[in-house]
């Protein structure tokens, strides 16, 4: 289609001024709509439109210029002389002095002062008022209030900030901190998120901590995928191992630059982010053979079920614990809340996993042995922190109450015995308290627990920041703790003396406490076992009875009795059924006021409940009974009569 308009103009009129005049609309061309084209298009439904109805706001950050402080000394030379007196001239100064002496007040004042002074002098001469009178009594430790203060803050250098996932102190007197940042939200891919992690330099001068430069990291690690956990090699202050978000494991050397020295091959690496990596005491120094990074030297698939091991059944491991003095054993905490104690030297996977503890309702976030009592360890997960003893498998020996906020990490206060530094002949008595452990919460509070002081609550809670705290690492000297939060900031917190200095009685008291709690647990365990045995004896007895009296079809544990009622043969199911009805009765009763009936029922029921649980635990893998609860809906209602019969027997 071509719209053109032709007009004529005389040559003599070229360049003439144009005179415009109004003209009405003129139809030049028109096109009819062609409905056939509609078929090439479809109506877009839904159409997303965004609108913004908000006042325009702008965000500004402001930081005042930092004042530079310089320490300087000032020399006090004679000052105070009035202007007319020349200090160098002795005559003049003498004259001035004499003038002052002549002053009226001088005489009086000096006499007064001298009188007081003489008293004190004579006092001093008579007896040394500051001497220690009782030499056999040790100075009582001051009842100092526990306190903590934040010494330093390290920010995540990249934007957007990522949460801190792991912190590790370097082994050379702990002057460096390695912090790894990673956003662990499942399959989140925030664009522009940096993959870097940082090493910060922290200087230590006597008992003060001065940071060389809290604004720039000493060293940056630049991997391809973000690092989830990062550990220093305890023997070599320059090398680190890290677990990445994509499952690979890398070894770094801080002297060699920003790239990993060795990286594991993807085919042999894990399939999920590596949560925890540790160095172990072996010849090559790592659990992965550094000479050929193609595969790990040992793989242990965490599968608890006794059937064949397969990767599909494997439980995710969420944290690892390894104690260098017990080289063949290590412990793993799983995402399902169980803790498995493993033996490296076992031949079959079953042998390798020696004990299992059912620890928490959620993933086990922290797992650490007490540095002085190797048989006891601390686990942190869901809303509690628990202390376990290896001898008691059924439950923890001590535990905290359920908190309001999720606990994210925990650690014991490390112990360092007397530490002679032969070069300077200085003895550092830096002992830390054995009974102290720390936990971090998701509401930004760092709790310090001292089980010798109080078991019910933390002896000190420090609000470090508003964001949830993600991880925690104690400094070897015991007074400092590094905590990292969700925003990527790491705080160094220093504690007061009484939380880090050890008392002579501590070890004894703590041993006594642990023993007492373990004994208590063992007694409970024994009692539970007794009850279980009795129950089993009873149930096998009852099973026999039922078999004798029953007729009719038997299929899968259900059979018809003479009454025509359908019954389960398995005692567990029968009991559970009875209990179910009891519960329902109780619920209906709960709407009515009387409470005594409920209480009685409850007691009886609790006992039954325990027995039921113990029973099912003992028989779970091989049990052929279908899970009792959902099946009941389909079966005929029993009524309380059955429950009554049960109790008699």
């Amino acid at each position, binding site marked *: 289609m071509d719209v053109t308009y032709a007009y004529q103009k005389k040559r003599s009129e070229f360049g003439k001024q144009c005179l415009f005049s109004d003209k009405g609309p003129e139809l030049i061309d028109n096109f009819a709509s062609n409905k056939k084209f509609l078929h090439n298009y479809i109506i877009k439904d839904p159409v997303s439109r965004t609108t913004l109805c908000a006042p325009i706001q702008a965000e500004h950050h402001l930081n005042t210029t930092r004042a530079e402080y310089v320490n300087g000394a000032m020399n006090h030379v*004679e000052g105070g002389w009035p202007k007319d007196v020349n200090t160098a001239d002795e005559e003049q100064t003498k004259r001035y002095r004499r003038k002052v002496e002549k002053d009226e*007040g001088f005489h009086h004042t000096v006499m007064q002062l001298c009188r007081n*002074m003489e008293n004190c*002098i004579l006092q001093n001469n008579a007896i040394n008022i500051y001497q220690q009178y009782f030499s056999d009594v040790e100075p009582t430790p001051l009842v100092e209030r526990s306190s903590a203060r934040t010494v330093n803050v390290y920010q995540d250098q990249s934007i957007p900030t990522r949460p801190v996932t792991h912190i590790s102190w370097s082994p050379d007197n702990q002057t460096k901190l390695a912090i790894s940042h990673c956003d662990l939200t499942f399959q989140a891919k925030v664009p522009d998120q940096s993959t870097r992690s940082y090493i910060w330099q922290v200087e230590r001068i006597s008992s003060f901590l001065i940071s060389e430069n809290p604004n720039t990291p000493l060293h940056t690690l630049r991997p391809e995928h973000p690092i989830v956990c990062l550990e220093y090699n305890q023997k070599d202050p320059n090398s680190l191992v890290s677990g990445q978000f994509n499952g690979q494991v890398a070894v770094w050397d801080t002297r060699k630059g920003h790239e990993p020295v060795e990286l594991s091959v993807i085919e042999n690496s894990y399939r999920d982010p590596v949560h925890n990596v540790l160095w172990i005491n072996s010849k090559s120094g790592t659990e992965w053979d550094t000479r050929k990074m193609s595969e790990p030297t040992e793989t242990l698939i965490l599968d608890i079920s006794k059937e064949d091991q397969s990767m599909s059944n494997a439980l995710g491991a969420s944290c690892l614990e390894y104690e260098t003095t017990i080289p063949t054993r290590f412990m793993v905490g799983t995402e399902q809340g169980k803790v498995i104690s493993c033996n490296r030297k076992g031949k079959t996977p079953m042998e390798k996993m020696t004990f299992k503890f059912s620890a928490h309702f959620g993933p086990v976030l922290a797992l650490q042995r007490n540095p002085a009592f190797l048989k006891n360890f601390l686990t942190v997960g869901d809303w509690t922190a628990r202390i376990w003893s290896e001898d008691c498998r059924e439950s923890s020996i001590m535990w905290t109450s359920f908190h309001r906020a999720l606990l994210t990490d925990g650690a014991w206060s490390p112990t360092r015995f007397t530490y002679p530094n032969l070069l300077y002949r200085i003895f550092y008595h830096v002992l830390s308290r054995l009974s102290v452990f720390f936990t971090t919460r998701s509401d930004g509070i760092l709790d310090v627990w001292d089980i010798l002081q109080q078991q019910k609550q933390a002896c000190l809670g420090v609000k470090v920041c508003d964001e949830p705290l993600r991880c925690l690492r104690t400094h070897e000297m015991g007074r400092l703790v590094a905590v990292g939060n969700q925003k990527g900031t790491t705080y160094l917190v220093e504690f007061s003396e009484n939380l880090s200095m050890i008392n002579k009685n501590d070890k004894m008291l703590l041993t006594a406490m642990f023993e007492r709690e373990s004994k208590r647990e063992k007694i409970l365990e024994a009692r539970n076992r007794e009850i279980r045995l009795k129950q089993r004896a009873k149930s096998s007895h009852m099973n026999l009875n039922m078999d004798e009296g029953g007729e009719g079809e038997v299929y899968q544990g259900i059979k018809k009795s003479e009454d025509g009622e359908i019954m389960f043969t398995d005692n567990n199911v029968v009991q559970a059924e009875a209990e179910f009805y009891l519960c329902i009765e109780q619920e209906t009763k709960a709407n009515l006021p009387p409470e005594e009936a409920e209480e009685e029922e409850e007691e009886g029921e609790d006992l039954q409940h325990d027995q039921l649980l113990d029973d099912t635990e003992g028989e779970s893998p091989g049990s052929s009974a279908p899970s009792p609860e959902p099946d009941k809906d389909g079966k005929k209602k029993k009524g309380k009569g059955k429950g009554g019969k049960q109790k008699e027997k």
Partner: protein
Amino acid sequence: SNEVEETMKRIQSHKGVVGTIVVNSEGIPIKTTLDNTTTVQYAGLISSLADKARSVVRDLDPSNDLTFLRIRSKKHEIMVAPDKEFILIVVQSPTD
């Protein structure tokens, strides 16, 4: 003034006393039994310390005032008797 001299001499003669200094409010040592450098040092340092101590006491309780200040160190004890206009400083070493 004679009395003053006598008293000062008496103080100086007590057992263990190393030196005595009288300093005025501007920090100028008026009378002293020590050498010049030491005197000047003591005068400057102690004046400011005594002032600070006094302000501490008065800050805690305005109706209170500093009467005496004793600084015990490993080697000596420095005793300071402050006043509005003058400060008397005596340095004594312990007798045991």
